[in-house]
């Protein structure tokens, strides 16, 4: 029972982080950040032995609180997977805070320590009280207006608790669950998560942004998995899964669109993380549908996709937000239209940002692509979950995946192409300075981890998701459909590397040294006083999205004379035909 003392030490680490949060004003300089880094690193190391040895669930009861009520903690594979992510990301965030050029503010250190400690406490919770305590801490730290969210979660846990019992998870698991209560729990949980993660007003606060990406988004998915897939597993009906699926699809599409249209680099990065949150919620919905319909393969693929979306948000999301804020600090602005040419001025930070964007988009060999591929596999494995009405959400998920993949790719191209490539657009942008070497090394380590996770996704899933999936599904996770090697990322990378190397090496004999020319290459002379061309003539990041079709509705209807029919464009005609067809199929049964 190696996990017993480890659980105790993990609880102590969480409490130490919370204590540190209360003492930040009394600690000198960066010592608060260093201590936070140290505690988080220790927490991550403590998580490793039970993760590698695939330790069984352990429970610890601490006789704290009012008589008759104790605090209950547990360490099971699901909480362990999220806990190691929390501590690893917490280490990176706290180290970034400590390594910054300016002395970190005490409120920033307090927010970081409270958030990490609160998240760890919520992940270790085995009853409603500890869970609410942890959630209240993180809510108060990064989203104070969502203070109702912890109480919604407490209400959800109480709904599942059998009468006469304290709100303990083990009591809930053993009691027969009511489908209606399970549905109410799901709605409450989704509402609480939406309240916590709802886009805030733009503050350009890197601490809040990174803590949301690295801690709050994974915690939201954990809550949904814990309360629906674990505690009310037997009572969840297939239709319950449609709620997170539909909500997740809509959030993913809206956030991906925002990412491709946002004027600021940090807002675009936050929107990409919002898309990850939507994708993980939609995947959980698909998982619930597939499990309720007794489709283990589809459920496994959906659960794998969920974990990849969470890892993407935690790892690549944190990296992207940190790099975006490092760029904002180095170039003096977050506005995309005022950035440019940073590949020459901030090469290390630019490379880290590019790695994060690759992982958040849906391009191979990024982590996001494998998540999308797994979701498609899940849809492919679940084509017979019911009639037409139950099939429509699957089609919506497919459409959402395809659309958000294209939007996320466009958003990534836009961020990298406008901010990193091209020429500086302003004199301040031309004077951007590379970040300090310690900050750069943190960013590049996260970038390396993101790329590695994209190249070895099956190994990452085996380490983090496999034990949790075994607990939730009772079977091992397949990473590929039966009789197929699946997505063989290494073969694809080898093939692409071979063909690219061939394209670079073979014509080398014919390759000549390029003539260097100014940007007036097209025959235009340089502007007077602008010998290097007009920098503001470059694309400023607008117009990367198509115009949305607008139906032309007549403004005034005259009853005596029939108005002329509105001129309907092609897509709207198809949409109407589509609706009529569905109605006809639905009516005919």
């Amino acid at each position, binding site marked *: 029972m190696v996990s017993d003392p480890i659980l105790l030490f993990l609880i102590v680490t969480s409490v130490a982080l919370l204590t540190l949060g209360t003492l930040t004003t009394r600690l000198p300089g960066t010592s608060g950040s260093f201590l936070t880094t140290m505690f988080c690193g220790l927490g991550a190391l403590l998580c490793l032995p039970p993760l590698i040895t695939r330790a069984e669930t352990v429970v610890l009861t601490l006789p704290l609180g009012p008589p008759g009520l104790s605090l209950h903690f547990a360490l099971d594979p699901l909480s362990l997977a999220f806990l190691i992510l929390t501590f690893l990301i917490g280490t990176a965030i706290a180290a970034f805070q400590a390594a910054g050029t300016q002395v970190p503010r005490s409120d920033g250190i307090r927010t970081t320590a409270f958030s990490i400690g609160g998240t760890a406490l919520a992940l270790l919770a085995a009853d409603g009280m500890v869970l609410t305590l942890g959630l209240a801490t993180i809510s108060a730290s990064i989203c104070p207006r969502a203070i109702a969210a912890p109480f919604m979660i407490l209400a959800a846990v109480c709904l599942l608790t059998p009468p006469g019992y304290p709100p303990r998870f083990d009591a809930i698991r053993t009691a027969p669950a009511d489908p209606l209560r399970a549905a109410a729990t799901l709605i409450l949980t989704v509402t609480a998560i939406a309240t916590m993660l709802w886009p805030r007003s733009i503050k350009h606060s890197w601490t809040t942004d990174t803590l949301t990406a690295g801690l709050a988004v994974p915690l939201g998915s954990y809550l949904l998995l814990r309360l629906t897939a674990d505690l009310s597993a037997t009572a969840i009906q297939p239709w319950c899964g449609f709620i997170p699926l539909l909500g997740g699809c809509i959030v993913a599409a809206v956030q991906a669109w925002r990412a491709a249209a946002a004027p600021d680099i940090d807002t675009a990065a936050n929107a990409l993380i919002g898309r990850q949150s939507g994708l993980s919620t939609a995947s959980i919905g698909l998982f619930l549908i597939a499990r309720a319909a007794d489709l283990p393969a589809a459920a496994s693929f959906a659960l794998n996709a969920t974990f990849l979306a969470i890892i993407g948000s935690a790892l690549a999301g944190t990296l992207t937000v940190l790099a975006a804020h490092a760029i904002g600090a180095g170039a003096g602005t977050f506005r995309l239209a005022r950035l*440019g*040419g940073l*590949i*020459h001025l901030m090469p290390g930070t630019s490379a880290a940002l590019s790695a994060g964007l690759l992982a958040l988009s*849906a*391009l191979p060999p990024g982590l996001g692509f494998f998540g999308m*591929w797994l979701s*498609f*596999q899940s*849809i*492919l494995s679940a*084509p017979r979950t019911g*009639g*037409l009405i139950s*099939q429509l959400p*699957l089609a919506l998920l*497919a*459409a959402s995946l*395809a659309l958000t*993949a*294209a939007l996320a*790719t*466009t958003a990534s*191209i836009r961020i990298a*192409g*406008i901010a990193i*490539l*091209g*020429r500086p657009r302003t004199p301040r942008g031309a004077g951007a300075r590379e970040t300090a070497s310690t900050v750069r090394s943190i960013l590049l380590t996260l970038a390396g981890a993101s790329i590695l996770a994209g190249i070895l996704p099956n190994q990452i899933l085996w380490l983090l998701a496999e034990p949790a999936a075994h607990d939730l599904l009772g079977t091992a996770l397949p990473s590929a*459909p039966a009789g*197929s090697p699946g997505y*063989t990322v290494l073969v694809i990378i080898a*093939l*692409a*590397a071979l*063909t690219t*190397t061939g*394209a*670079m090496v073979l014509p080398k004999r*014919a*390759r000549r040294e*390029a*003539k*260097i*020319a100014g*940007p007036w*290459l097209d025959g235009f002379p340089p502007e007077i006083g602008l010998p*290097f*061309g*007009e920098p503001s003539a*470059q*694309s400023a990041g607008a*117009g*990367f*999205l198509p115009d949305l*079709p607008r139906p032309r509705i007549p403004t005034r209807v005259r009853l005596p004379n029939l108005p002329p029919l509105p001129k309907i464009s*092609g*897509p709207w005609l198809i949409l109407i035909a*589509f609706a009529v067809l*569905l109605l006809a199929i639905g009516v005919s049964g």
Partner: protein
Amino acid sequence: MSIVLPFVAQVLHILLILAAAPTLAGVTGWLEARLNGQSGPPIPLPWRELIRLSRKTPAMLESTSAVSHVAPAIGFGVTLTAAILVPSFALFTTLSPVADVVVIVSLLALARATTALATLDSGGGRSGLRQQSASALAVIVEPAAMLSVLAVALMAGTLNLDSMIAQQREGMLMPAAASLIALIALGTILVTDTALPDDSLGGIELALALAAGWLRRLTWIDLIGGIFLPVGIASADSGPLAWLIGLGVWLVKLIAIVLALAALSALFGRIPRHSLPGVFGVAALLALLAVIMVLASAGMA
């Protein structure tokens, strides 16, 4: 023998597509001109263009980074990888187990992304504007392409392209209406897929970008031909005689599709750029309709 024949077929397939892509571009240009009553450029013109460009001293903008130098090669390499995975004359070659349709469509998207980054790296005003509108179109085209192949994959129950083609050859992919709608959606993408390389490139980089464009078009033609016209396609282990038949049928299919494209272009003319979002929007909705029809038919089965 069971390893050697698929390997030989794979190597032959790679050589064939490398040779066919520029030739097909030449044939397309010639056919379009002939159908419009003009004499037309010579068919080997793309080859001459490649040789001319590879000998030319390129001019690079001073503000460009290493991205502009490597992006055309990456774009070509990634497009070639996608083209290699789409079977031409034989199924079940060495790389067929990794020929996943989602990977193929995403590799083509990756190639587009590298081209876009090279364009934005040049820092030119005109090329940036062109890239903006290309990205706006890609937001509609890429979901359409993904949903079209997904509709067929849902019918086949697999994402593996060779298995999908083999099932289509056996006539097992139903319903036919969804298949037809997916074909129309993919066909629309093929007809309008006329992306031109960035004019800020020059020399060998421009040659690679042009070759990548031709390969991309060939990949779409092979994908449509393989999924919707799987007639005569040989199995890699069936030997050289079957390959020869497969090769002949493949060439006929290529010419037939190119002829159809040229005829469409001559009949209706080129689609104006401002109308492209509407056309692609229709293709995307058709592809979604195909997915719904397949899912609905499976759900009712």
